[in-house]
């Protein structure tokens, strides 16, 4: 049934009371909501089974006022599946189906927290009970992720209860398109897809274009290795994206929207479709929304997994059903986009900020962040860091805060070596820049980029040449093949890196890499090619000594490059237990029992089986 503004308001009133125990920390009452994370990470560790089990036990025990709710990603993915009990805010981690009985019995019925399921601090191993007390959440500010982990993403009424569609209503009934753009411009919001183009300006370009037919597109083709910011937003709060797209449609004069989302995001796709269906049912998508002249509908287009389709013009080609290859710019999509019509294209996270800005005002938003970069940024924190997961921090937060305070530092007592931001288009940042406040400009200055928000931490066991090789390997397989520099150039760079890692590199190869990188950046058609050499350029900039070690000394200090690594037994530590000899698959180790053993380097295949076998850590 189509709902009027009044009817929506009514739902909001009723539902927000129902959800108070989740949103209001001071809520008192007997009701409890058990929130079970249903992000992709937790889902793959069986959170849907946990949800069913909890429901089953509650039914069995005939417990009243206990709700089990499916929610979006809570961020701390390495500790999933996560279960939170509200209003008390108890945070259970790594829950299994077998723990459900105890959670209900002990926590819900007897009011006793299940201590063994609580998160422990990294240093002191102390249990932390509440979500708010987790160091992981302390420095975060959730704007884009505001509703993730709070509401059921498949229930439009829950979205309505947390100010859902208020922004759309406000825009449609009280604001002119120019006012929306003014608000966005004042807020200082910049594109979260990576390049940081001012959002208000972009919307204005499309508004100013003449033409009956315009389009609004959402770029949800998140492709950076290790990045899952957009996925989590779509999974946890799909309506906020649809609402923002509708606002965009009204503002620029478009009646049709497309969400281009990877087919590898099945949960996001399902929830988006559910959300679209629900909004159509309520008349929030469709003709004459809220009785105004604004009509808007959205269709999902699935991407088939090509990284280049994250590039906006290649994405448009793909939406049109063509081979995903970038177009030459100009013309920009704002002038000639989808089917040559003026098209607004923004990334998921950009849209996620729009409703918040409309609801809370540009000044509020502009008060967060740095001079040139306002608001927050979501990062997918991964690699050699204790708390792998999704974090949202104000612009200007330092890398050190993200990695050490939020991320809990480097595991296994290793040393921080570098962090890669911006995925394959970005660069690696060495330790000396850990205290740089992160924003678009500062990252560019130190040779990296914001990118869409992938943040991979590396410890001292990572070889920087090998890292560059990893990213080049990625771009080589993801290059669309259209232009020469990217198609052939990245392949030649990869081959050169392989040569260096295999121990056959020369100093000349380093120079070759540098020249090639420069020319690929300058001559490629699209952003993919223009930024593809960045991992090489930045590792060469900060870790050239490692490259030199590879080509001159033929050694890899991180011991990642097998051909440049010697596996040796420390005679001081070896007790002659013979276990390494037994573990060696090629008979490269000799030595009598109780005597110091030795590795024959000519036979060793560097499989590292002996390292694992040695109980005395004598082999390295």
């Amino acid at each position, binding site marked *: 049934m189509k709902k009027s503004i009044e009817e929506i308001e009514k739902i909001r009133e009723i539902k927000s009371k129902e959800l108070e125990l989740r949103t209001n920390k001071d809520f008192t009452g007997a009701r409890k909501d058990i929130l079970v994370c249903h992000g992709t990470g937790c889902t793959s560790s069986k959170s849907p089974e946990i949800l069913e089990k909890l429901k089953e036990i509650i039914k069995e025990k005939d417990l009243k006022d206990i709700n089990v709710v499916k929610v979006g990603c809570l961020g701390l993915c390495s500790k999933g599946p996560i279960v939170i009990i509200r209003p008390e805010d108890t945070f259970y981690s790594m829950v299994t189906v077998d723990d459900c009985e105890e959670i209900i019995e002990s926590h819900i019925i007897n009011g006793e927290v299940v201590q063994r399921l609580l998160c422990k601090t990294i240093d002191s191993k102390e249990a932390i009970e509440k979500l708010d007390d987790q160091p992981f959440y302390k420095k975060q500010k959730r704007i884009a992720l505001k509703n993730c982990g709070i509401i059921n993403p498949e229930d439009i009424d829950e979205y309505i209860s947390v100010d859902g569609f208020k922004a759309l209503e406000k825009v449609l009934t009280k604001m002119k398109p120019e006012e929306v753009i003014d608000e966005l411009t004042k807020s200082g919001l910049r594109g979260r897809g990576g390049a940081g183009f001012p959002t208000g300006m972009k919307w204005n370009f499309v508004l100013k274009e003449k033409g009956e037919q315009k389009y609004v597109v959402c770029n949800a083709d998140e492709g950076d290795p290790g990045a899952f910011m957009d996925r989590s937003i779509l999974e946890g709060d799909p309506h906020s994206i649809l609402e923002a797209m509708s606002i965009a449609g009204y503002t620029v004069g478009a009646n049709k929207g497309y969400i281009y989302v990877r087919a590898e995001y099945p949960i996001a796709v399902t929830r988006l479709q559910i959300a679209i269906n629900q909004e159509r049912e309520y008349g929030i998508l469709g003709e004459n929304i809220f009785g105004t002249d604004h009509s808007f509908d959205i269709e999902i287009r699935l991407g088939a997994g*090509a990284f*280049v389709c994250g590039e906006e013009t290649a994405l448009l080609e793909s939406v049109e059903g063509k*081979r995903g290859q970038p177009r*030459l710019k100009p013309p920009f999509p704002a002038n000639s986009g989808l089917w040559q019509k003026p098209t607004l294209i923004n990334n998921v996270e950009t849209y996620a900020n729009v409703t918040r800005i409309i609801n809370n005002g540009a000044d509020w938003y502009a008060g967060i962040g740095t001079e040139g970069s306002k608001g927050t940024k979501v990062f997918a924190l991964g690699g050699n860091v204790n708390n792998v997961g999704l974090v949202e921090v104000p612009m200007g937060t330092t890398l050190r805060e993200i990695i050490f305070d939020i991320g809990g530092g480097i595991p296994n007592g290793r040393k921080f070596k570098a962090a890669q931001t911006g995925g394959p288009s970005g660069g690696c940042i060495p330790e000396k820049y850990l205290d740089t406040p992160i924003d678009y400009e500062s990252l560019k200055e130190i040779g990296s980029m914001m990118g869409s928000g992938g943040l991979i931490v590396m410890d001292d066991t990572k070889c920087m040449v090998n890292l560059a090789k990893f990213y080049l390997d990625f771009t*080589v*397989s*993801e*290059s*669309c*093949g*259209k*232009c*020469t*520099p*990217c*198609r*052939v*150039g*990245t*392949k*030649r760079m990869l*081959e*050169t890196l392989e040569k260096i890692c295999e121990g056959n590199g020369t100093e000349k190869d380093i120079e*070759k890499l540098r*020249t*090639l990188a420069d*020319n690929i950046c*300058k*001559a*490629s*058609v699209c952003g993919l090619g*223009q930024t593809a050499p960045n991992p090489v350029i930045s590792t060469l900039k900060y870790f050239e000594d490692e490259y030199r070690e590879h080509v001159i000394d033929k050694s890899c200090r991180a011991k990642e490059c097998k051909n440049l690594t010697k596996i040796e037994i420390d005679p001081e530590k070896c007790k002659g237990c013979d276990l390494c000899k037994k573990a060696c698959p090629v008979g490269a180790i000799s030595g009598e029992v109780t005597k110091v053993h030795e590795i024959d380097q000519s036979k060793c295949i560097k499989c590292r089986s002996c390292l694992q076998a040695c109980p005395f850590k004598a082999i390295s």
Partner: protein
Amino acid sequence: MIKLEIDSMPVEVEEGTTILEAARKVNIDIPTLCFLKEINEVGDCRMCIVEVEGRRGFATSCITKVEEGMVVHTHTPSVVEARKAVLNLILSNHNRDCLTCIRNGNCELQKLAQKYNVQNVDYDGAKTSNEIDDKSPSIVRDQSKCILCRRCVGMCKRVQEIGAIESTNRGFESTISTADNQSLNDVDCTFCGQCIEACPVGALHEKDDTSKVWRMINDKDTFTIVQTAPAVRVGLGEEFGMPIGTNVKGKMVTALKRLGFDKVFDTNTGADFTIMEEANEFIERFTNGGTLPMMTSCCPAWVRFAEKNYPEQLDHLSSCKSPHQMFGAILKSYFAKKYDVEPERIKVISVMPCVAKKYESVREEMEVDGLRDVDAVITIRELARMIKQRDIEFTELEDSEFEDPMGEATGAAAIFGVTGGVMEAALRTAADTIEGKSLDKIDYEAVRGQEGIKKATVEIAGKEIRIVVASGLKNARKIMNEISSGKADYDFVEIMACPGGCINGGGQPIKSSKIRATKDVRQLRADSIYSIDEKSTFRKSHDNPIIKTIYNDFLEKPNSHEAHKYLHTTYHKEEKYNF
């Protein structure tokens, strides 16, 4: 008009002009590789990059339009270095057996490498592919030479709208491929050969049949007869550096004689037979309620296109064989008997501006009494190679005439080489035949010119005949769709697969992207053809004395039983894909 500055020179050009075109105006030759005017304007190869003041990164000059006040630098150190790097990268994934390449000396990549002084290829990494597809009788695809400029794709997909080839795979693994990577022989390719004309390197070329022809010439027991198509004489000279469209008929005949062929005849005589048969077939259909519109059938790529795409419409095609096939059949029957040569000893070699003719000559139907009409087909390019191989100084040759008894053909036959020519020639004969007298009207201006589709109505003996002339397979498809949907009310349709007709055939000399962009190659060759027509003694096929003689002595009359045996053929449905 837009004013801009290129390399410190003021330039004034019309709005919509590209930087590349503007630069050429002031004699700056920005290099290109993937650019083919109006056919492939994609900016992929990155050779044409230039610096534009105030713009981030390089601009792609082949597609970037000029703007007022633009300041362009075409050869800054940075641009030149990048171009060199790009060339180096292309070369690193290119089979560099240049000395033995069919395009040696006429390769755009080779020229650029030379121009940019690329003396070393810096990378010796992987190569994409070394696949060679030589299954078809017409076209060879050598992937090891392909530089992925996609000019062939633009030609096949956008000009011809066939789409037999397309980019597949991604990144370094990208290749130009057919459906399921099958041979061109087994997919929807029509063998028009326009892709060869588009290719800047040796990745696409005709199947070379010169060795086969040399063997025939050198075999003492074989009586070789060579025939040359109407459009050969206006293209061949270009292979020897002569101006585009030069009519080199006399030198060509001399060269062919020197090559050692036993007889040198003109396919134009065959074309006169075609007109006799086709005009009369049309009159028969037109007056007795046969299937209309009747469509010409002298272009084998068009025939293959029709067989693959419109099998249910094949009864529209004239049953006439094409001129060189008709002529081959006549040579092995009438000529053999009259001049007492055992037909089994005769080998007919056709020199054609076409690669589809190679396919046509091996079609099963193309034989009479177990004797193949034509035994070998070579393109203009192959003939040029043979002449060069024999060290004949072509440009210095004296002229000579085609040999008796087939002698000189008519102007009607000459214009077969250009779009509209077959129609015009047929109308000249049909009009005289229907009216029963020799009319003064010879020129049918409405069917001349380079437009893709030309429609007209001509009045003969008080009856209106609705005609249409289409060239280029894109246009052929339009006409066929009209016919299929019942919207067409034409009586007579001429179709040629190559845009502009045989003067722009897939066997013509290959012109560089720059020449294609700056010279009207088609028009120059067409003008030359029309001037041959104008200067001809006879301009109507039925006036040709040898034609009259042969009908009297041998074929009786057009469309007789004998004529059908030697000069007509059949068509059949071809599967679009055979795999």
